[in-house]
């Protein structure tokens, strides 16, 4: 198990360098913004990775709470299947989707949600789900910080302002605030049931996201301001580089999560061993 880690680390490093090379050299220069637009290849993949990690945290938190009561576990399974199914059907039924969104991508998101839920449910039992929640929250906050740093660095040269209450940037900031408070709760908790408290906060955070989205969306229509990255179609070559970068970031995030997860498991074993003053639990 230990031998694979360095090999994977090297591979990921190579992949990241290749992606960096693509972003800096190969991708076409954007006419209006010039080379500074290349920040796009780091800003957007980091955001997608952060959102994915926060979603994994939500799933792990729900699973941790739901697994304690068998009836709740069954209900949750059916709810997730329903979400997956409805999203797929809605993808093809709904006539006017928001511009630039194809039914296929909505359907894959629906299936993706269900797939992630059942994958995590399959491989992460009770305490492991809680460890996964900690890990995904922490690594998610790191990637979210990257987004909040690269965002203004991009907005300054192009629109002359450091910060804009753009819909995506603002919801990323609020998600960042929610998950930093999540990490604070875990750090300051003096109860032996920290996992339960953190899971409850994660669920509250998830309930908050759609409300954040709608409130910022309407706030935007009343105070129009420039939109980061602009909408509209994107040059296929740019899209190719973007996806390569995203893949590289996902591998990197996976590596980070894996090592942080190992760290978390051993930390808990050491804590338990110190508590019970016995050794057999440390593997």
């Amino acid at each position, binding site marked *: 198990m230990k031998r694979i880690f360095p090999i994977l680390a090297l591979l990921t490093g190579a992949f990241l360098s290749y992606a960096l090379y693509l972003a800096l050299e190969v991708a076409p220069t954007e006419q209006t913004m010039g080379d500074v637009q290349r920040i796009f290849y780091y800003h957007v993949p980091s955001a997608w990775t952060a959102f994915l990690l926060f979603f994994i945290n939500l799933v792990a938190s729900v699973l941790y709470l739901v697994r304690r009561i068998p009836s709740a576990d069954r209900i949750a399974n059916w709810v997730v299947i329903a979400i997956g199914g409805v999203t797929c059907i809605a993808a093809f039924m709904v006539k006017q989707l928001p511009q630039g969104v194809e039914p296929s991508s909505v359907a894959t998101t629906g299936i993706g949600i269900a797939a992630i839920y059942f994958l995590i449910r399959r491989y992460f039992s009770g305490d492991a789900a809680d460890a996964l929640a900690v890990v995904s929250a922490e690594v998610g906050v790191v990637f979210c910080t990257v987004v909040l*740093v690269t965002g203004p660095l991009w907005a300054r040269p192009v629109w002359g302002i450091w910060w804009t209450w753009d819909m995506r940037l603002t919801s990323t900031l609020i998600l960042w605030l929610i998950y930093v408070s999540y990490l604070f709760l875990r750090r300051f908790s003096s109860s032996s049931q920290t996992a339960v408290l953190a899971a409850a906060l994660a669920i509250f955070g998830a309930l908050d996201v759609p409300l954040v989205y709608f409130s910022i969306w309407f706030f935007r229509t009343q105070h129009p301001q420039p939109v980061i990255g602009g909408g509209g179609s994107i040059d296929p070559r740019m899209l190719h580089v973007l996806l390569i970068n995203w893949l590289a970031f996902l591998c990197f995030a996976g590596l980070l999560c894996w090592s942080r997860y190992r760290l978390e498991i051993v930390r808990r074993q050491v804590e338990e061993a110190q508590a019970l003053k016995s050794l057999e639990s440390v593997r």
Partner: protein
Amino acid sequence: MNFLYAAYAATWVIHVVYLGTLVTRYMRLRRDVDELKRK
């Protein structure tokens, strides 16, 4: 132009700092495990 390199550099600084915290936590943990093994 330097905003581009600043953004890329900032990204890697953040990641390296985080990796640094992971390494220090791992070292401290290694020390605890050895201590436990000795006891």
